[in-house]
């Protein structure tokens, strides 16, 4: 399952920042620390870093080109460096760019670092819809970030045989996983039921409070070191990047509907499919695997309906009957597909552009996910999305 000429992750660095930690570290400081830890895990030095990529800068950092400040902090001199900015999908898009560069032979090691928007540094609730809505044609009508997603949810429920009660099962199962994760935001909140979700307050119909991801209380900053697959065996615990794909369809949500006549994106203007479908199809083809072979799936889904849509678009429910799949226990923690094993956005908490979904997959593939380890985990899919379903990226990993 390791493609000839493919790439591998050979080092991980993680920094968890909590609101109690004083004095508060800067966003740049956490990126640099995670990067240095990843270099130590890989056993490489500064001179080895041929490429340094960062995800989109945390919103608290108004200066552009945060990658250059990480270079200052680490005292490295890469041959190629840039921010990768397709919203939250940029975190996984970094891995794709690094894989292409490694395959070209122009570099030997790439360091990819992604921080996040965090409530440590700003009020994410107040800033969010301003960042996500079109300033001229959407924002004057006073949307919230949740209301933009709610437009997609209502259209989904209108077009397909799936309803809020089906989606509520996803929140229930994600909570079960989170109860086993030492860092999860909802770790101490106890289990929830479908009725709990359906009786929680409406935020923007049909989305209720327990359909939504909480913001992570603090920040999880992750860095990875990548190298060519032919060099992976020089390192202790490689994770192979078997396939990847990406698609961006719009910036502002209402622009998605003006996308005429592109192959694969519906004959008439439609929210569906999102770019996740094309990203996943490319990743499966590149890895030479089918969805049924996956041992675990981590998705970037801040709302229950979006996780349900992704089960379809990522090819996990081939007949498209997501409601039936969920009813049959398709993602039940006990016996179903291992789905969002950290608790996911819904119960681990949303740490925005962080690579924490990738971190969870790597811990599972390294068999280091204590308390929530998926038996014989060897093949994982990680999905990242950003904007209001604007950009989607998929990476398939194998041990």
């Amino acid at each position, binding site marked *: 399952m390791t493609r000839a000429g493919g790439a591998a992750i050979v080092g991980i660095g993680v920094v968890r920042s909590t609101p109690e930690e004083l004095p508060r570290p800067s966003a740049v400081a956490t990126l640099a620390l995670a990067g240095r830890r990843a270099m130590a895990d890989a056993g490489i030095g500064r001179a080895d870093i041929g490429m340094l990529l960062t995800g989109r800068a945390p919103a608290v950092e108004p200066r552009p080109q945060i990658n250059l400040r990480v270079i200052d902090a680490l005292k490295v001199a890469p041959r190629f460096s840039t921010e990768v900015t397709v919203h939250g999908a940029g975190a996984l898009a970094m891995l794709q760019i690094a894989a292409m560069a490694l395959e070209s032979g122009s570099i030997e090691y790439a360091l990819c670092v992604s921080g996040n928007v965090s409530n440590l540094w700003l009020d994410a609730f107040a800033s969010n*819809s301003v960042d996500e809505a*079109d*300033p*001229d*044609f*959407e924002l*004057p*009508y*006073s*949307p*919230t970030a*949740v*209301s933009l997603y*709610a*437009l*997609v*949810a*209502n*259209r989904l429920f*209108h077009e397909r045989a799936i309803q809020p009660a089906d989606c509520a099962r996803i929140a229930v199962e994600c909570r079960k996983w989170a109860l086993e994760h030492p860092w999860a935001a909802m770790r101490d909140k106890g289990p929830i039921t479908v009725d709990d979700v359906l009786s929680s*307050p*409406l*935020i*923007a*119909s*049909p*989305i209720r409070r327990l359909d939504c991801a909480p913001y992570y209380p603090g920040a999880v900053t992750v860095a990875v070191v990548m190298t060519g697959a032919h060099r992976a065996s020089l390192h202790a615990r490689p994770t192979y990047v078997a396939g990847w794909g990406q698609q961006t369809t719009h910036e502002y*949500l*209402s*622009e998605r*509907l*003006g996308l*005429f*006549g592109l192959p694969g994106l519906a004959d008439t*203007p439609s*929210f569906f499919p999102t770019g996740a479908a094309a990203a996943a199809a490319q990743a499966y083809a590149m890895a030479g695997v089918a969805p049924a072979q996956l041992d675990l799936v981590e998705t970037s889904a801040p709302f229950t309906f979006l996780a349900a849509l992704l089960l379809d678009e990522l090819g996990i429910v081939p007949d498209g009957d997501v409601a039936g799949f969920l009813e049959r226990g398709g993602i039940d923690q006990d016996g179903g597909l291992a789905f969002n094993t950290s608790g996911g956005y819904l119960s681990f908490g949303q740490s925005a552009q962080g690579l924490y979904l990738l971190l969870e997959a790597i811990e599972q593939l390294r068999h280091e996910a204590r308390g929530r380890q998926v038996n014989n985990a060897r093949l994982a899919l990680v999905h990242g999305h950003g904007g209001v379903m604007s950009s989607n990226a998929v990476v398939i990993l194998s041990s």
Partner: protein
Amino acid sequence: MSQGGPEAEFWAGVRQHQLLIKACPRCGVRLHPRRTVCPVCGHERLDWLAASGRGNVYSLTTLHRAPSTEMEAALPYQLGIVRLVEDVFFFTRLFGNGPEALSVGAPVELRFRVLELGMELPVFVEA
């Protein structure tokens, strides 16, 4: 609001109670007023066209949480995306005739109303 671009002309139309869209004189496609070059055929000059103001609800939501304290008194309010008969989509505020919320597919028509934040905006009401 953005500086430059077609937005100024669009909002001048709103002040005249017109909903302006773009039309490509070469391939005929109707486009959102944002467009400045035809994405379909590449023609570099687009014409302005007053929309009919008739359409259907593509999707909608009722907000129960407001983005700002100024909007709290307006809760619950409906936002949606309307598909005009010209096949152009507008993000907008929606108003039903009765207490019942509108639904996906409902026919709607254009009005101009001063909303809570003091701006007169194109909105759509149940037809």
